[in-house]
């Protein structure tokens, strides 16, 4: 192929082109990604648009969706004026923050333990990954029976060992249900954090750890001043991924309690499901989803920024 040298300087010296002009110049590139863009518009953009549109309509149970009634921002007002919404919001934040934090800390601890070579490490790693790879539905049913207020394994053990007079009430009490479900969620998620952080630990330079040891740093100081700073990037990514997953976590809560008792374990996603599919208030559920969408998008924004910052930092070091 022949390149005409005169064309290159001509482009380089041209005034900054408009968006459309640049798009036209790169039209061939766009053509290549067009199928992907069309698919994304259908499966992402349209549902988002439709959800936003639906959020401005009332959809009473006695009417078909096509007979929806325009109500402006009423659905948003109904949600924000509902006591249950605020209870569910508090549940959602407790659920997300505590689950994410605990899964991260437990995952980090396990990753550090498994980072050192010891006999049976591979087997231990495989065992620890099990909660993450088994079906969430199966896990939820198993935990429901483990927690069962009359026949649960934990309750029976506590009674048998003399720690309790009768089996504790885990998921049938408004006070203990959310912490009990968080334990299950952390159990399911920590292997993910462990894998991510174990990968991150491979990037910590060995010579730095040896130098710290030479300088007299103990295990804690080596971890805090050498290892942990190197895990910053992967930690941000892990925490944000966990947080987004927890905001959208549905299976454990729905199967184990259905959001009960008395809404004590409802989180946004289960509440939206109930409003939409159980009560057929598609409009209110859509408004609810828009709110959740904005929050998750914000998290996504920080995720991308966090990743960018970590990459810069990684590049600088």
């Amino acid at each position, binding site marked *: 192929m022949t390149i005409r040298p005169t064309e290159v300087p001509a482009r380089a010296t041209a005034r900054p082109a408009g968006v459309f002009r640049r798009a036209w110049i790169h039209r061939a590139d766009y053509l290549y990604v067009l199928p992907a863009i069309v698919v994304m518009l259908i499966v992402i953009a349209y549902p988002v648009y439709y959800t936003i549109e639906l959020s401005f309509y009332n959809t009473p149970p006695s009417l078909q969706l096509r007979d929806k009634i325009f109500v402006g921002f009423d659905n948003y007002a109904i949600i924000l004026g509902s006591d249950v919404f605020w209870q569910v919001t508090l549940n959602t934040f407790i659920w997300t923050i505590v689950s994410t934090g605990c899964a991260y800390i437990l995952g980090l601890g396990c990753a550090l333990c498994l980072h050192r070579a010891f006999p049976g490490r591979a087997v231990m790693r495989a065992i620890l990954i099990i909660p993450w790879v088994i079906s969430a539905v199966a896990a939820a049913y198993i935990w429901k029976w483990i927690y069962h207020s009359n026949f649960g394994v934990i309750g029976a053990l506590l009674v048998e060992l003399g720690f309790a007079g009768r089996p504790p009430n885990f998921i049938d009490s408004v006070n203990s249900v959310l912490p009990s479900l968080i334990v299950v969620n952390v159990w399911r998620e920590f292997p993910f954090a462990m894998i991510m952080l174990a990968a991150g630990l491979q990037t910590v330079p060995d010579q730095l750890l040896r130098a710290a040891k030479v300088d007299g740093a103990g295990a804690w100081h080596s971890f805090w001043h050498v290892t942990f700073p190197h895990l910053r990037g992967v930690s941000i990514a892990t925490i944000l991924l966990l947080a987004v997953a927890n905001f959208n976590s549905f299976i454990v809560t729905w199967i184990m309690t*259905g959001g009960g008792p008395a809404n004590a374990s409802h989180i946004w996603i289960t509440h939206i499901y109930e409003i939409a599919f159980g009560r057929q208030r598609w409009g209110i559920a859509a408004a609810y989803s828009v709110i959740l969408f904005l929050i998750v998008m914000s998290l996504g924004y920080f995720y991308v920024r966090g990743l960018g910052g970590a990459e810069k930092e990684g590049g600088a070091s």
Partner: protein
Amino acid sequence: MSKIHLGCAVRRGVSTASIAAALAVWWPASAQSPVDLTKWSPEYVRSIAGTQEFDTAADCGKVTPLNYRGRVSFWYQGAFEGDPDLLRQYYRDFFATFRKTYPNIQLEDQALTYNDLLDKFRTALLGTAGPMVVRLQILGGVEFASKGYLQELKPEDIGYTAQDFWPGAMKSNMWKGKTYGIPTNNETMALIWNADLFKRAGLDPDKPPATWDDVVRYSKQIKEKTGIAGYGLVARKNAGNTPYRFMPQLWAYGGGVFDEASASPNYAQIQLNTAASKRALQASYDMYVRDKSVPVSALTNQQADNQPLFLAGQLAMMISHPSDYDVMLDLKKKATGSDAQTAQNVIDNMRYGLIPTGPDGKRAVVFGGSNMHILKPEYVDGGKVDQPAAKALVCFWTSPEWSLKMAYAGSNPGNLNGFKTKWMKERLENIKFLDVTTAMLPYGIPFPTIPETPEIMNIIVPDMLQNALTGTMSVDQAAEDAARKIRNVMSGGKL
């Protein structure tokens, strides 16, 4: 072997006269039912069993020729963990027989669980991807008929008459004077108790609690004397089992969601916050909170969770179908060692009786069951309904033969002629406690036939129970809160 007394409670407590009296309470005189309900005593059922032969293929062949070539898609509530193996076998037999009878109809059937069916069906309809035929729980049909998803479908359209079905069941298919479905089966539950636990608690092992106040008292006594839960309260949300067990209690105390227990309900007045309704809720509160005499797990339990508790001898009373006896036998097969012995002891001591009355002698039970519907083409996947194929399927399931067989262990045939078949005679000999639930039929009260019923029964009523039982609200507050929510639902506005 066992000391099971077949229908002993029935013979003691039910007479044709009492049935007639009960009917007078709830069945509207204006309905002019062509079915003489007063004669439907257990004795009458026994007298007609095995008196008539039916040829399903010949009958349905008149509706849709047996050589018809077509296709039908079908969703239904299948057997789930709480059902006996016997039912699973009949489901398999049904589909095999239909395919053999109509070899040129391509049947695409999909089974869903009770709690999932409504949600999935609604979602499919939004995407105009429904099946051609659906079998829905009795409380679901009106919702979809009112929204215009269903075709009109009368018994006459498939070769039967309205007189072949229970009037209450036909009513559950009516919306604005038109009929939208055919009943497949109808059920009323009964009280089940463990006579051995009654004895150990100092109660007469053959005398069930006569009133709901007695249930509260018995439950407390059993808990105090044996340490075992008395009554199997069920208060899980989004689970059909909850309203099926709480509504009989609510109606017996004279309460209701609306006036559905009255002779001519118009569903205009909310009654969930009346003194009578609050007394019913108070009874549940007393058992769960005050006496702690029911399983702590009641808030997350369904009936399927009560069954193993009962079989393990850890529950003295519960409300359920005759099929629970078969479920116990199935579960017992899985037990080993001393567990198997315990299970056998429970089965030997299993008794069935009428559901208790309220303080004023009012007895009530949910008139349950399922109906089959044909959808309008515009809501069906592919935009077409193969009418002859759809009608063949509906005719087949609602025939005397199959409406009986598909309800063999648990409920009653939707088609009243099912009672006359030889399989009914065989069933009366094989299925324990059938008399009791047959005897409960006249006390059956249908759920309100309004589109909002699924939300009220599956969410608002369980929410009310949970709010009261967890102490989140007082009994008064929980009842008032539920009434407010129903007002909101009926006005189509707030949550």
